[in-house]
């Protein structure tokens, strides 16, 4: 009965949700079984905080500013907002969070954004080539990403789907995902499994277990394979059976919107 009611709610809400909301909701769902999550700012923070309000209330949020077990009531604008420290179980210096907690192998899931991703889920957040005669376009840089991707149990990538972002060849490799195939992480001695999903506003890509190449495994409601292929800069492979993500539930949308509204209002 509850399921039927939920489905009805979901159907009501479905008319209204945006593609970004699909991305955010599915990113949150991907944290359902994690104990600890290393949270970058922006989309990853939205998703992780939504997960705490929906699928995983006990999820431990760890921010690179050194706040462990933060329980913010609204979305922080930066990874060092005061509420992250005020609501944390422990606040540690930045070197400690990287050495004892991240490198120490204590984080189940690392959540990363990206400017460019290639077919092996390698990531560029450093510079982009803007064409002949033009200077390289400057991006913010690595931040914590190279070591998050190396040391977390697994990595989720979240970014909007476009040919600018999903590229045949990265202009720079900031952060290794799967290198050039399934053996590169092992060869480099990386403790974690690396990227297990790229969650976009169109669907979800996952590395093929045999080749580590990103493959379309799920589509969001109303999205076609052709749309995803058109937004991907390489010949995207699809899984034998491409699934569909469940539409956001009313609860997911309500919590997501409340979070974002609270985040905006505090400025």
């Amino acid at each position, binding site marked *: 009965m509850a399921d039927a009611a939920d489905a009805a709610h979901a159907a009501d809400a479905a008319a209204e949700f945006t593609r970004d909301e699909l991305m955010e909701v599915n990113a949150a769902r991907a944290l359902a079984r994690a104990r600890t999550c290393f949270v970058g700012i922006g989309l990853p923070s939205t998703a992780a905080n939504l997960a705490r309000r929906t699928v995983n209330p006990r999820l431990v949020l760890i921010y690179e500013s050194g706040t462990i077990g933060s329980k913010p009531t609204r979305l922080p604008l930066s990874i060092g907002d005061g509420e992250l420290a005020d609501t944390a179980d422990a606040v540690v210096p930045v070197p400690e969070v*990287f050495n004892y907690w991240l490198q120490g192998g204590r984080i189940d899931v690392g959540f990363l954004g990206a400017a460019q991703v290639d077919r092996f889920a390698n990531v560029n957040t450093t510079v982009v080539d803007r064409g002949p005669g033009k200077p390289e376009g400057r991006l913010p*840089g690595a*931040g914590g990403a190279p070591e998050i991707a190396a040391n977390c149990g697994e990595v989720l990538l979240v970014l909007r789907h476009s040919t600018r972002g999903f590229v045949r060849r990265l202009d720079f490799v900031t952060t290794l995902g799967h290198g050039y195939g399934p053996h590169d992480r092992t060869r480099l001695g990386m403790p974690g499994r690396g990227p297990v999903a790229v969650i976009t506003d169109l669907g979800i890509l996952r590395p093929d277990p045999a080749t580590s190449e990103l493959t379309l495994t799920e589509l969001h409601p109303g999205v076609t394979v052709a749309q995803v292929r058109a937004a991907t800069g390489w010949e995207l492979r699809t899984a034998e059976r491409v699934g569909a993500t469940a539409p956001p539930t009313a609860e997911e949308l309500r919590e997501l919107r409340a979070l974002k509204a609270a985040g905006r209002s505090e400025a």
Partner: protein
Amino acid sequence: MAETRTLRDAVAELVHDGDTVALEGFTHLIPFAAAHEIIRQGITDLTLARMTPDVVYDQLIGAGLVKKLVFSWGGNPGVGSLHRFRDAVENGWPRPLELDEHSHAGMANRYVAGASKLPFAVLRGYRGSGLATRTDTVSTVVCPFTGEELAAVAALNPDVTVIHAQRADRDRNVQFWGVLGVQKEAALAARRVLVTVEEVVDELPPTPGAVVLPGWTVDAVVPVPGGAHPSYASGYSVRDNAFYRAWDPVARDREAFRAWLAEHVLSEGTAN
């Protein structure tokens, strides 16, 4: 004693042309007031180190005082780009900006090595990343016990580290709490240390989560209430997120930036 010194005198005494300077503070406790004093005094040819350059270095870079930036993430947190930083890197305006670029883990460990007076630190990092190809401060070492190759990062020992803290006492003992960042390491790694504080008190009240830097590790303490704005000092102020958002259009435009600098930094204080 430190408490009788003005910010102008302390900056003039401790920060010199050509210095390597770290103004640290991870989102929290960023020493903006001291940075503005550096701008007013026109102290130039600086190598600036900071994990997150943030708006504070956008301002120093835009003011043309910086020849090199040592950093790991150069964005306006939650907002977008640092446009003065980008303009300097992409177009050399107002002067070219040399970069020594790291990951956060690498930068944090460079300060740790600096505070420990070791020439380098070891981490499991930079693997498969192109970062190591662009800097001479990342290398490798082999574990003598297991044979594993690990990343080595060169120690970072600033000529001067500048931090903002909540409180100090009259013996220059400095106390800060909340998001702790890498300030203790950056201060202990430096040859000289300048601290601005919200207030000077007779005795530091024991405070949960507080770090104390003993007075004998600090060269100058200057009371500058609100000296971290638009960053914040936990217990005294909140982050002015609206300022960070409003910075975007100001920094996008060279003339808008110059006008902002003239109005909000150069016309204030006593150095002009």
